[in-house]
């Protein structure tokens, strides 16, 4: 078998580009492997990992692929088939493909191109702030990754299956819990007392301010109704729009004022990520 000079040239080209020591030695290894593949020294390669590398390059050579223009998917598929025949495990095979991808910087053109068109349609209103300030889109690897993740049906992250293990609580744990809760309860009652006093003051002020208005009688009722609605959400975490009839201005105002009161009474926390028209998120205190 003739050593394909293109392969060597290609590796050398990238060797010059890469400055990290790690990658450097890796490329050197590949060069050795490529030479081994060309001279048919495969028998001497026993380490399965090295052998996989050998096979990878063997394949490039035998299929007369142009290393400057490799079809990543085609290459990977062929390689995997070969690896299976040679009984290499998939994990090693996966590693090789990944390295080949990195080292050879294969351009998976059809993958990138098909996604490029989608990305353009993503946002219609493009403003100055949309021009990326970080070069995260400029790099091919990052670009392909982002697009691949978004278009593939699964996620690259899988939740591993672990043991549902719990044990009985010990008496000591019960006792320290008791110890803690007594302290907490004292603090809670103190705070609650302060809150009540403040609430009375606030109410007096509010009455004065709203004397004569129709809201006066209903405010407490409204707050109670909204609190009831909030309590119906099981996890204690919900959005403002879940809570009221969005198309009714009156209900929107009523709900909004009520959640401000409830937040003041520390029954809930309220936050908004996008001001001023974004969704308002509500969390009840004491759940979780």
């Amino acid at each position: 078998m003739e050593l394909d000079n293109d392969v060597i040239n290609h590796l050398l080209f990238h060797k010059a580009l890469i400055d990290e020591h790690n990658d450097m030695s890796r490329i050197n290894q590949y060069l050795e492997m490529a030479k081994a593949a060309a001279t048919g020294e495969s028998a001497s390669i026993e380490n399965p990992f090295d052998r996989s590398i050998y096979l990878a390059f063997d394949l490039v050579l035998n299929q007369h692929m142009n290393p400057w223009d490799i079809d990543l998917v085609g290459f990977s598929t062929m390689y995997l088939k070969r690896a299976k025949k040679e009984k290499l495990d998939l994990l090693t095979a996966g590693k090789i493909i990944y390295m080949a991808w990195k080292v050879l910087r294969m351009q998976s053109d059809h993958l990138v191109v098909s996604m490029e068109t989608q990305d353009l349609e993503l946002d219609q209103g493009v403003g100055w702030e949309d021009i990326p300030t970080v070069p995260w889109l400029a790099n091919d690897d990052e670009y392909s990754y982002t697009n691949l993740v978004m278009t593939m049906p699964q996620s690259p992250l899988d939740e591993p299956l672990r043991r549902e293990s719990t044990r009985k609580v010990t008496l000591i744990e019960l006792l320290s819990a008791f110890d803690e809760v007594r302290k907490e309860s004292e603090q809670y009652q103190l705070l609650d007392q302060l809150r009540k006093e403040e609430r009375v003051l606030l109410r007096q002020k509010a009455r004065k301010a709203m004397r004569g208005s129709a809201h006066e009688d209903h405010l407490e009722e409204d707050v109670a109704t909204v609190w009831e609605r909030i309590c119906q959400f099981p996890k204690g975490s919900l959005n403002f729009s879940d809570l009221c009839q969005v198309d009714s201005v009156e209900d929107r105002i009523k709900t909004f004022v009520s959640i401000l009161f409830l937040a003041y009474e520390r029954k809930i926390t309220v936050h908004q990520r996008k001001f001023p028209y974004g969704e308002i998120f509500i969390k009840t205190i004491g759940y979780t």
Partner: protein
Amino acid sequence: MSIKENRLVESLLFSSGKPLSIEEIQETTGLPPKKVNEAIEHLMQSYNIDRKNDTSLEIVKAGNKFIMQVKKTFTDKSMMVAKPEIKTDLLKTLALIAFHQPVKQSNLRHMIGERIYADVDQLVSLHLIHSEPHGATEMLTTTRLFPEYFGIDSTKPKEIREFLSMKVIGHVVEEKQEELAKKEEDASEESDDTPVSESHMKKDE
């Protein structure tokens, strides 16, 4: 081949963490009962006999169910790494109920706030407390399971209460003593006075 089935049943016994019946295994795996039985037999042979000395795990029959567990020799140490089945916050509420029982839910709300409602629901479903309607609120007491669970040698509320307060005080004193000992070590000139723990104890009674 049945190898794959053995592995599947093994992964189920491992992940479930609680005993599983043949039916449950069958339902989840879609394997016929005969295959499930064979797999369990194989696994028991492998874990409990063939590899007896090479593993700290065993598969045992508990009633009509099967469970993968740590052998008794190793349980002492391994037990504490698992998380307790009752979360700390819930345990706190339980301790409070046990101490004040019989206690109105509304009173507990004043002590620890709104979270009491969710906590009571959970404790009832764990069979650790009873909740009986009492006017507009609920009256809460611990069940028979409670003393059993914690190895407390009494079912009487009054004795449980005494037990808790005595133990907690002991606990607090111990902690404070440790703290003190440390302080004394750090600053060797410090002397006898132990004001904190004492006043703390009195307040709790």
